[in-house]
């Protein structure tokens, strides 16, 4: 009998505590794994400097963060979504359909994407065209569209070392992949004139772009669905490998990696801020305005995040590898005024 009583009382406790589960105290954040380290750094500083609890930060990728963000308004939904790309139209629609209408977009800075091989490997001097010719499924040779059969980097460009092509690129669920496709593959496609050859061969513009961004599948290009740590482990086990990393990851592992230059520019926070280094992208987070004033500390957290002491060029985020936004002052104003997206 006592077992039954125990079970009933346990269930009663759950039911009672469920109804008491009101008033969330801490901010809930989810989204991009690229923004995650910045978010945790700020969360930690926020917690130790302010009288609010440390926000809870989940990762999981931009897409899943946005999905959670757009689930609706209320205490059991998240307050902030981190994103390594701008919110898409379809995500806006989902948000609107679920009543998430007032969204504040906050750009925190820029992130560079770098190409690095093992520290003992040769120096690489790339151009986007090299990457396109090395990794694209279809390339143009003598004016003909043919399957890519290049085996070594110096087949692609005689200036590159005689090293087998083996590239570890982020998988399709990563926001980084999109940037890689647009800023490297597509740019290289246009630069090398392959784009014109594709359209000349009878493809329409969309099909040609698609062909530019399709990677070869014969094992020379390997999709990494995990994190940069996995890419690093793959490079350590296969010395010919070249990986695609975020700048901050590279800066934390400079003893194990050697970075290549792109179009003659070495990646650094300075060259990315000035726009010289071509492969970079803005990082964002999105805030539910309806939660400001309901979740304690939300407005303070957003203000704190974009303040000069944190996101400025001398702040801890820049030290970690974030390229601070030259227009930070405008962002601060927008945040203070609570400007939402139109």
């Amino acid at each position, binding site marked *: 009998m006592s077992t039954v009583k*125990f079970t009933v009382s346990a269930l009663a406790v*759950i039911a009672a505590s469920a109804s008491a589960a009101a008033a969330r105290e801490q901010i809930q954040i989810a989204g991009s794994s690229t923004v995650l380290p910045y978010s945790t*750094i700020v969360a930690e500083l926020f917690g130790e400097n302010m009288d609010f609890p440390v926000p809870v930060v989940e990762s999981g990728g931009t897409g899943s963060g946005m999905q959670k963000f757009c689930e609706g308004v209320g205490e059991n939904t998240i307050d902030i979504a981190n994103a390594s790309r701008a919110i898409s139209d379809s995500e806006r629609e989902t948000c609107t359909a679920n009543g998430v209408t007032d969204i504040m977009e906050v750009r925190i800075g820029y992130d560079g994407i770098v190409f690095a091989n093992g520290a003992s490997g040769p120096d690489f001097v790339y151009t986007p065209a090299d990457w396109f010719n090395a990794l694209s499924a279809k390339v143009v040779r003598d004016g003909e569209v043919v399957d890519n059969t290049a085996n070594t980097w110096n087949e692609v460009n005689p200036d590159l070392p005689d090293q087998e092509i083996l590239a570890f690129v982020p998988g399709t669920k990563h926001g980084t992949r999109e940037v890689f496709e647009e800023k490297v593959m597509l740019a290289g496609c246009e630069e090398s004139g392959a784009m014109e050859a594709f359209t000349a061969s009878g493809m329409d513009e969309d099909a040609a772009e698609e062909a530019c961004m399709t990677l070869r599948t014969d094992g020379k290009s390997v999709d990494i669905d995990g994190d940069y740590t996995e890419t690093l482990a793959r490079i350590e086990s296969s010395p010919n490998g070249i990986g695609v990393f975020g700048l901050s990851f590279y800066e*934390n592992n400079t*003893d194990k990696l050697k970075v290549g230059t792109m179009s003659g520019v070495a990646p650094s926070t300075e060259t990315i801020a000035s726009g010289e280094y071509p492969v970079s992208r803005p990082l964002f987070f999105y805030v539910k305005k309806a939660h400001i004033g309901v979740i304690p500390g939300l407005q303070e957290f957003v203000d704190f995040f974009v303040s000069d002491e944190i996101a400025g060029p001398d702040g801890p985020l820049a030290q970690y590898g974030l390229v601070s936004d030259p227009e930070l002052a405008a962002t601060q104003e927008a945040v203070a005024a609570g400007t939402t997206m139109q």
Partner: protein
Amino acid sequence: MTDMPLSDTAAAPRRKAASLLKQDARTRRRNAAEKRFRLYGAAAIAISLAALLVLLATILTNGAGAFRQTYLNIPVALDAEVLDPRGNRDPAEMARVLTTSYGRVLDAAVRDTIARHDIRIEGLSDDDIGGLISREASAQVRDRVLDDPGLVGQTVEFDVLTSGRIDGYFKGRVTMDSAERDGNTSPQQLQLAQELADRGEMVTRFNWDFLTNADASDQRPEAAGLGVAILGSFYMMLVVLVLSVPIGVAASIYLEEFAPKNHLTDIIEVNISNLAAVPSIVFGILGLAAFINFVGLPQSAPIVGGLVLTLMTLPTIIISTRAALKAVPPSIRDAALGVGASKMQSVVHHVLPLAMPGILTGTIIGLAQALGETAPLLLIGMVAFVRNYPDGLPGGLMDPASALPVQVYNWTQRSDPAFIERASGAIIVLLVFLLCMNLLAIWLRRKFERRW
């Protein structure tokens, strides 16, 4: 005529070996086959042992470092101009000074220490001096100053963490060679650390903080600990224990002793076995839909994690409890009923105590399984960066918390190499917990076991 069969049977053994001491070909083959079979078994065990040894050796060599940490003993002059710009020692005013400003005070303290010991190193940069100690130290000093504003203006001794690279140097993870190429440290910085260690100011000692500290961000791996994760795992296991044991045992007793054998119970039985094999992530999806979206329980809370893991362990517990009940001989029940006990009395007084060792073992193994589970926690928001400790019971069940396997998963994704050591250390802690639980299971079984 009667001799004929006799002589036939007498002839038959003659075809076999003449002596038992001498083996014929067939016996030799059979013996060889048996030897081979035993060899296969031994080889299988050897392979699994080798795999286990490699795993343990990697984890131990990678993770042992997490239990030791390098600290720097340093007198800090708490500069009133920086820490209390208005000069009124009002904690509310002083709280406006952020930890970033405290970094300057600490930099100055490191310079003082270098000067005091008269250490001269060629090419030592400002970054090297600033990067010597952990960023956590700023928070440590700030907390102390805000607790006792009277300290401002004095010089106070602090025992602060050194940065991850310096700590790695004393553990052999960072070398002069790697520092040459490393953007976050330099040979000069390591040289400075060595000098300070030679003078006894910098010591590497056992690191209790690893077990009690909360998680820390990517910039301070040296401060990251398992405190919140251990507490979160403990809360979840408590919920699992409190819910799954009574529910599981009650369900099994009913199914085994009271329920009629019909189609309905057959269906239930099939479903229970089926649920035991369902991938754990499915329970996470269920938990998100049922407990968070429908009931409205908070995200990232141990109560939701516990409920999800309860659902996951219930089939395991029911199956093992039913097996334990089945193993009690029917004669015990018959004897109890025979002397006039009711059905319930026979179960509660006789069957259940005898089945107890099996039930306990099943429960503990179910709990151990739940302790190591990450996938279902992914969807309910527990795979997260959580730095605040949850409150005490019962309110703490509603506060965000992490869990041990989650912490391992999180740390393996961080970019700073120091987190690899932390992750392996967390695996060691998790393995020790699992080992303790399994030993407890074995001990309980031995203690209560009865033979017939």
